[in-house]
C-alpha cells in the first residue's frame, strides 16, 4: 500500500473543496491535496448549466460551470495537488485517509487536518413511499440533469415531476426546452418547495402546472413506466377518495430534497445534527473530531453556492489554525440553539476564545412570514441581530455578527429567534 504525508486533505472537489484549497494555499500552506472521485473538479456545478450562481461572490449571474471554472482556474494556477478518479473509502480519528484509484491502488494518506467536502445527494424513491412495481423510468431530477446536460441523451418523452424542489423546477424547464413534455409538477405539501423565482421562470414561463397538496399514489407499468395515478391529499396528507386521476407518462422525476453525504462521517463517529443531517460544527466549521472540518453541502443543504464557498474558506482558515496550534481546543463550548421559528442553524456551537472579529451564522425559518426580526438571546439579554422584510423556509438566511455584538456574549448558551417586528 502506497503511503503519503500531507498537511491538509480535502475530500471532494466541488465548490466547497476548491474554495477551501485555494484559501489554504493563499495562507501559505504548501502540502494541500484535493481528492475527487469524479474525472474532473467542479462537483455538482458541472451539471447545473442554468444561470443564477455567484450573485453574492462575483455580483454576476453565472452558470454552474462558469462558477466552477473560476475556481478550477485558481486551483490550477496555484499548482494545488489534485487526485481525480480517486474515491475516499474511510477516514480515521487519527486523521488517516484511505482512498483508492486505478493508478495508485490503495492509498494511505496521513494528514495534519482534513476537510470534508463531499456535498449532498438526492433523496430517492426508497425515502418517499410510492406503491407499484419497480419499472424503469423513475429518476431523480439530478440524474436527469446529468443525462441531458453532460451525457447528451434524453431519458424519455413525457414526464411527471414529483416534488417541487428547485432542481425539479429547473429540470421542468430544461426538459421542456429539450422536447420532453412535462405533464405537471405534483407536490404533497400545501406550499411549494422551491424558490418563487423558479416557479416563475421554470413553470409559469412554459405553462407547466404546479399541483399542490397532490401526490403520486401509484406508478403503473412493468418493464417501463406507463403512467401514474395522482391524488389530492387532505391536511394529514392522506389521499382523498375520488380525487384520483390517471396520467400517461414514461418518466417519473423525483425532486424530493437533498441530504448531506455522510457515510464517511458516520463511520468515523462524527456527531451529526438531526436537523441538518450533517456534522455538528463549531465556529471554525470543525466537527466533533478535532482537526476534522466540514464545508459546503456536506454540513447542511445551503441553497446558494456562494454560501458553500464561504464555508470552505472558514473551514480552511480553521484548519490552518489547527495545524499551527493556535486553535483553542480545551475551553468548553457555548451551544447555539434554534428558538422560535428557526430550524436549521449553523454553527451549532462556538468557543468564545476562538472567535475572530466577526462570526457568520446560517439559518432557515420554519414558517414563511413578513416583517420579521432576528433576535439572539442569552442569560437575561436579548439583542436584535437583523431585520427581514420577508422570510421563507426555502431561502437560507446568512448573518454576520461583528466584534461589538460578539463581545457581549457570556458563557451562557445562545438562542436565535425569528420574531414578528412589533
Amino acid at each position, binding site marked *: 500500500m502506497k503511503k503519503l504525508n500531507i498537511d491538509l486533505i480535502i475530500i471532494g472537489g466541488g465548490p466547497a473543496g476548491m474554495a477551501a484549497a485555494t484559501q489554504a494555499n493563499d495562507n501559505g500552506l504548501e502540502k494541500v491535496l484535493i481528492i475527487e472521485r469524479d*474525472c474532473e473538479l467542479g462537483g455538482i456545478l458541472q451539471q447545473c448549466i442554468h444561470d443564477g450562481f455567484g450573485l453574492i461572490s462575483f455580483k454576476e449571474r453565472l*452558470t454552474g460551470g462558469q462558477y466552477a471554472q473560476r475556481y478550477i482556474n485558481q486551483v490550477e494556477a496555484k499548482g494545488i495537488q489534485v487526485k481525480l478518479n480517486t474515491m475516499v473509502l474511510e477516514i480515521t480519528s487519527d486523521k488517516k485517509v484511505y482512498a483508492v484509484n486505478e493508478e495508485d491502488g490503495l492509498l494511505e494518506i496521513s494528514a495534519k487536518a482534513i476537510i470534508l467536502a463531499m456535498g449532498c445527494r438526492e433523496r430517492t424513491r426508497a425515502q418517499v413511499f410510492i406503491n407499484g412495481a419497480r419499472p424503469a423510468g423513475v429518476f431523480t431530477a439530478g440524474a436527469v440533469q446529468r443525462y441531458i446536460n*453532460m451525457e447528451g441523451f434524453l431519458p424519455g418523452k413525457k414526464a411527471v415531476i414529483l416534488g417541487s424542489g428547485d432542481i425539479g423546477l429547473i429540470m421542468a424547464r430544461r426538459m421542456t426546452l429539450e422536447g420532453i413534455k412535462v405533464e405537471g409538477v405534483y407536490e404533497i405539501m400545501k406550499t411549494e418547495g422551491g424558490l418563487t423565482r423558479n416557479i416563475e421562470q421554470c413553470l409559469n414561463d412554459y405553462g407547466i402546472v404546479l399541483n399542490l397538496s397532490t401526490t403520486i399514489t401509484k406508478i403503473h407499468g412493468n418493464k417501463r413506466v406507463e403512467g401514474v395515478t395522482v391524488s389530492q391529499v387532505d391536511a394529514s396528507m392522506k389521499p382523498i377518495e375520488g380525487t384520483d386521476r390517471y396520467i400517461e407518462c414514461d418518466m417519473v422525476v423525483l425532486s424530493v430534497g437533498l441530504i448531506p453525504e455522510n457515510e464517511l462521517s458516520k463511520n468515523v463517529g462524527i456527531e451529526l445534527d438531526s436537523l441538518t443531517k450533517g456534522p455538528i460544527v463549531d465556529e471554525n466549521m470543525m466537527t466533533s473530531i478535532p482537526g476534522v472540518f466540514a464545508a459546503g453541502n456536506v454540513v447542511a443543504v445551503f441553497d446558494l453556492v456562494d454560501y458553500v464557498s464561504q464555508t470552505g474558506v472558514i473551514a480552511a482558515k480553521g484548519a490552518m489554525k489547527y495545524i499551527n496550534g493556535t486553535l483553542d481546543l480545551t475551553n468548553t463550548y457555548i451551544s447555539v440553539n434554534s428558538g422560535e421559528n428557526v430550524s436549521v442553524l449553523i454553527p451549532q456551537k462556538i468557543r468564545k476564545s476562538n472567535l475572530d472579529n466577526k462570526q457568520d451564522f446560517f439559518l432557515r425559518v420554519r414558517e414563511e412570514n413578513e416583517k420579521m426580526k432576528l433576535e439572539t438571546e442569552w442569560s437575561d439579554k436579548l439583542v436584535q441581530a437583523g431585520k427581514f422584510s420577508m422570510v421563507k423556509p426555502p431561502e437560507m438566511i446568512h448573518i454576520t455578527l461583528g466584534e461589538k455584538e460578539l463581545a457581549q456574549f457570556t458563557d451562557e448558551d445562545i438562542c436565535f429567534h425569528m420574531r414578528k417586528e412589533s
Partner: protein
Amino acid sequence: MEKISYTCIVCPKSCKGELIVKDNNEFETSGYICKRGIEYAINEYRSPKRMLTTTVKMLNGTFSNLPVVSDNEVDKDKLFACLNYLYSTKLEAPIKEGDIIVANILNTGVNIIAARDMKIKS
C-alpha cells in the same frame, strides 16, 4: 392606468411587486427591494427577456455536450428559434470558457459563449 403584478426572478428573494403604467406612459413600481427588480418589471412589460442556457454537441470533447450561455438576455419569443439553431451546431474541442460559439445569434445582438473549458477526449 394599468396595474400588473410581476415576480422578480433576478435573485432568490423573488420579490412580488407591482408595476403601474400611468396614462402618460410613466412607470411606478412597488414591492421591489432593489433597482434590478424595477428594471425587470419594466422589461417584462415592454418586452420580456431571458438568459439562454443550453448545451451544444461536441465531436471530440471529454463530454458529449458543452454548456453554453448567452452573454446578455435574449427576447423571450426568440428563445426557441435560437435553441433550434444551436441544436444544429456541432463543435470541436479544445474550447475555453468564454469563447464565442455563435456571434450575434439570429441577429439578436447577443453572443452565445462557452460556459466551461472542454478538452479533447484522449
